[in-house]
């Protein structure tokens, strides 16, 4: 007997995962870039900062 699967559940799951991971990656890479550039500017301006 064939299983009755709600196909939309799989579609929702795939979209939530794909969109969530992509947005998280965009936000993380942007914030990491801004943090690293701010650290470089601090080092350039003379104050000693760690990582």
């Amino acid at each position, binding site marked *: 007997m064939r299983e009755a699967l709600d196909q939309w559940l799989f*579609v929702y799951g795939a979209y939530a995962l794909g969109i969530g991971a992509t947005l998280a990656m965009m936000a993380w890479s942007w914030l990491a870039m801004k943090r690293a550039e701010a650290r*470089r500017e601090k080092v350039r301006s003379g104050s000693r900062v760690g990582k």
Partner: protein
Amino acid sequence: MHGFANPKRFLALAGWLTPLLLVSGFFVTAAALYWGFTQVPPDRLMGETVRIIFIHVPTAWLGMGGWTAIAISSLVFLVWRHPLAAIAARGAAVPGLVFTLVCLATGSIWGRPTWGTWWVWDGRLTSMLVLAFLYIAYIALAQAAQREGVSARIPAIFGLIGAINIPIINRSVVWWNSLHQPPSITMGKSAIDGVFLAPLLFAVIGFSLIFGGVVLARMRALLADIQADARLRRRAMEAD
């Protein structure tokens, strides 16, 4: 092309290109996914699950594209010794890994209602999983090389050797029996109906723009870290 290997010129270009790629990629991808989610009819065989194609296929291509970028940048670094090429290779690693993992996860979700299983150890799925492990190894190796002050040639050589997996992934559905369908889109030909193909191409463009934006953001972050560390080291040596 060699002119852009200058970090100053690169930063001047990446300063405006990074947000442009990320914002345009966001809107093009959002429009393509909305199109695919709400406007496309169900497929005759796969039903509603065909909509997963608009995430699965672009991320699969970019997962492989990411490693191709690593291999080309590594080759440029090894031949011409441009430090920016090594940074470009490292910049492509994180988005490549994320898209490879999304491809694997969405493929697994698609496989359950279509094939009746979440996973099968066939050529395509296994070689794609190997690609994810290669990305993780590359990221760890490149980070360790930077931290320990080891030559960037080691991750570059690893990036080149790992490229052997890309044609294996591409040809796996032709070489071995697989539940995965054979290539639907080849050079100049498509077995996909136009009603699915148009939003798919838009999704590929959108995800590619995001990929490019993330690569530039990662490169800027890595470059800023390297420059800050170099300045701190110089200052420490002067103080001694």
